[in-house]
């Protein structure tokens, strides 16, 4: 890790004179009729230079992926380039015949995708899928292809490469799959590597490793890398140069330091400002009485059990205990599969814990049933991750907000009255009340989701990855809203997230979970500034863009 900045310094010098491996000139890509705008990519120009990583940053729909697909000639049927050139060497990809273009794919340039699972053929062994690259270009004998496959797997650092070669994709972990993808991309040692959000689907630690790997290989082979991401942390981590895209245009381009440290365009500024700072400020420990007390909570899943096959047992929540003080925000962080969500679901009893105590204001909710549970549960509510899945597409907002109260015996008109108040509370127009969810943007929906959680006037709110699905700028707004509400309504908040930056920003205390256990629990400041547990430390170190930020702070 530490050496990277040094390396990069050298790289950026190197690029000055090097001739570009690819040159994109005034690229225009048209969207099909009826799309929200005419051009997905509008007059975009940039160079890909050997030995340099160009990061293209932008929020969803900014057209960053389109340009990548255009380079590979993999645009969807309905969108087509309508102007400009993509020069690789002296050839313009857009004017090449299918055959010529096919020949360049994999050989001249290769691509890795966001979803390593779906990007691999589930029915083919890993080795075969790699071997195909050679086959496609009529290289090597089948035997040699297999051997090269194993070599490549070794190069990308997969443990037990022979075994991995014989495996099917579903038998590998997310990180390993992405490594396979990379191996595949490297097979013919292309000059250009296009990476489309290659780490977005991965956990922080894995992400760090993959970034490391890409960086490393790129160095070694002096490739030109086009790296598409929405995460400035990643940018800070890996980029030599940055191009910021918005609405299909490049609004700002420059060296990573210039763009991150002295953004010119205000969109860029807005984006960067929106990134949660890693600095968790020291906060006074909250002395209030605990509202929620969890003791020795356990939950195990039994999978694949049948009358003959013995199922596997997963200890999702393993002897978890903590208390949540009135008005406090407790963060639960961890990577996927750490059991953080299971905890949250046990608290609201969407899951039934196997054992343990969940005292809410003195009442143990862990084993409540039926009517009693129904009544008590209104005191602890949840905000969900996916703003699209969390609202019933067929109900008007008004009903979504009033169903709960009405279920608890509030008369209809009162409930609707309350609903419109709530909408204003979360910063939406009261007129929203008789519109349908699909008429709102992601951020607005999340606000509705929050309003719904508040509708029952709960004492505790569980926010499960509440902002993970949002673009940074929106994310920031929603976080602010939460903070504001919390202050005004004096809520106790359990904030479940994989994103330590977010955690750092909003949490008083943080519990770090791994494999179902809480490995460390303490004030946010301590967690970030002197983590005791090794795992915590690795998590913190994996946070992309961390050095840069630290450097910035200490510089």
């Amino acid at each position: 890790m530490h050496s990277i900045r040094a390396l990069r310094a050298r790289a950026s010098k190197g690029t000055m004179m090097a001739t570009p491996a690819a040159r994109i000139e005034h690229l225009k890509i048209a969207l099909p009729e009826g799309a929200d705008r005419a051009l997905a990519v509008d007059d975009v120009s940039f160079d890909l230079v050997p030995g340099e990583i160009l990061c293209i940053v932008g929020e969803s729909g900014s057209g960053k992926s389109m340009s990548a697909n255009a380079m590979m000639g993999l645009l969807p049927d309905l969108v087509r380039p309508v102007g400009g050139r993509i020069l690789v060497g002296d050839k313009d990809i857009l004017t090449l015949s299918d055959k010529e273009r096919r020949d360049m794919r994999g050989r001249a340039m290769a691509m890795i995708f966001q979803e390593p699972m779906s990007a691999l053929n589930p029915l083919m062994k890993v080795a075969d899928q790699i071997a195909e690259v050679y086959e496609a270009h009529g290289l090597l004998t089948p035997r040699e292809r297999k051997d090269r496959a194993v070599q490549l797997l070794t190069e990308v650092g997969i443990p037990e490469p022979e075994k991995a070669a014989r495996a099917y994709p579903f038998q590998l972990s997310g990180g390993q799959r992405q490594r396979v993808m990379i191996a595949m991309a490297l097979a013919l040692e292309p000059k250009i590597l296009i990476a489309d959000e290659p780490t977005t689907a991965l956990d922080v630690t894995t992400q760090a490793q993959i970034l490391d790997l890409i960086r490393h290989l790129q160095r070694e082979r002096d490739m030109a890398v086009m790296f598409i991401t929405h995460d400035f942390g990643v940018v800070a981590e890996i980029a030599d140069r940055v191009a910021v895209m918005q609405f299909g245009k490049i609004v700002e381009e420059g060296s990573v330091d210039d763009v991150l440290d002295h953004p010119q365009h205000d969109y860029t500024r807005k984006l960067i400002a929106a990134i949660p700072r890693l600095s968790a400020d020291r906060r006074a420990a909250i002395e209030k009485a605990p509202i929620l007390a969890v003791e020795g909570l356990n939950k195990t899943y039994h999978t694949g059990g049948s009358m003959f096959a013995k199922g596997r047992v997963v200890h999702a929540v393993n002897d978890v205990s903590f208390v949540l003080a009135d008005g406090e925000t407790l963060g639960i962080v961890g990577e996927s599969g750490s059991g953080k969500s299971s905890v949250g679901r046990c608290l609201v009893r969407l899951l039934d814990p196997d054992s343990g105590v969940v005292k809410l204001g003195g009442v143990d909710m862990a084993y409540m049933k039926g009517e009693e549970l129904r009544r008590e549960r209104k005191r602890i509510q949840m905000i969900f991750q996916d703003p699209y899945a969390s609202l019933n597409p067929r109900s008007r907002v008004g009903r979504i907000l009033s169903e709960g109260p009405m279920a608890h015996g509030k008369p209809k008109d009162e409930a609707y009255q309350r609903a419109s108040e709530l909408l204003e509370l979360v910063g939406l127009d009261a007129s929203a009340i008789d519109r349908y969810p699909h008429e709102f943007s992601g951020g607005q929906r999340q606000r509705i989701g929050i309003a719904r959680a508040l509708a029952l006037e709960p004492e505790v709110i569980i926010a499960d990855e509440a902002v993970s699905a949002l673009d940074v700028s929106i994310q920031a707004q929603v976080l602010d809203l939460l903070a504001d509400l919390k202050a005004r309504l004096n809520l106790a908040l359990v904030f479940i997230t994989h994103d330590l930056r977010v955690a750092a920003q909003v949490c008083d205390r943080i519990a770090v979970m791994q494999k179902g256990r809480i490995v460390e629990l303490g004030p946010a400041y301590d967690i970030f500034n002197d983590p005791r547990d090794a795992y915590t430390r690795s998590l913190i170190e994996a946070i992309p863009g961390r050095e840069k930020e630290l450097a910035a702070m200490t510089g």
Partner: protein
Amino acid sequence: MMGDFWKRFSRNRGAVIGLFILLLVVVVAAIAPLLFPDSPWRMVQRPFLPPFEMSEYPLGTDTIGRNVISGLAYGAQVSLLVGLVSTVVSLLIGIPIGALAGYFGGFVDDALMRFTELFQTVPNFALAIVLVAIFEPSIYSIIAAIAIVSWPPVARLVRGEFLSLRQREYVEAATLSGQSHAAIIWRQILPNTLSPIIVLASLMVATAILLESSLSFLGLGDPNLMSWGYMIGAARTVIRQAWWLSFFPGVAILLTVLALNLIGEGLNDALNPRLARKGK
């Protein structure tokens, strides 16, 4: 919402054609008594009058001199009636079973699905035949039989939808907000399963019509109702001397069923936009 539904639907040319054909059939069925005041069973001309010979019997007469075209008109009534009612009935059986199985899962699911398998394992058509024969052919026994053999797919579909939808966050939210199971099933989940159900239903009507005609063809139709399948079955033994007796009813069935299938696809495009892109 209705507007763009129609937009998406009408984008599928086949669907529009289908709709047109179906409307035609419906109209004919509706005004059959006006078009042909005589009972379709009435022996009006010499037997085996070939088509296109006498203007008042454009499609000729059958083995005992009944007017084929009026038979077709009245037959439309039966086909549509049976198609619709039996579909509704099988929805009434299939949806609750599927919903309960999918929503509660676990033991309930197992029990209900085994039960469903019972009906899926016995070959449909054979079962239908036996049911009709046993309860003696009549419009009721036919509808019942068709419904009984066609509900399992509904149950499976609904179950599938419920299984996935009950994981949705808005359903969990509803649970947290203290709504009853009934309310959740009825207000949260069911409305969101409608699209696929509607599509399936439209195809089921088609299948039901085919089933009815097949039963009538085997002589298991309602003997007091003129139906297309019956006409073909009755004409089968004389197919050599009178091709038209089996030809025209067959075409009628073909067109109606085709129309319904086309509409089904149209509905699919219109109601499940995500799937719509496939195949286009």
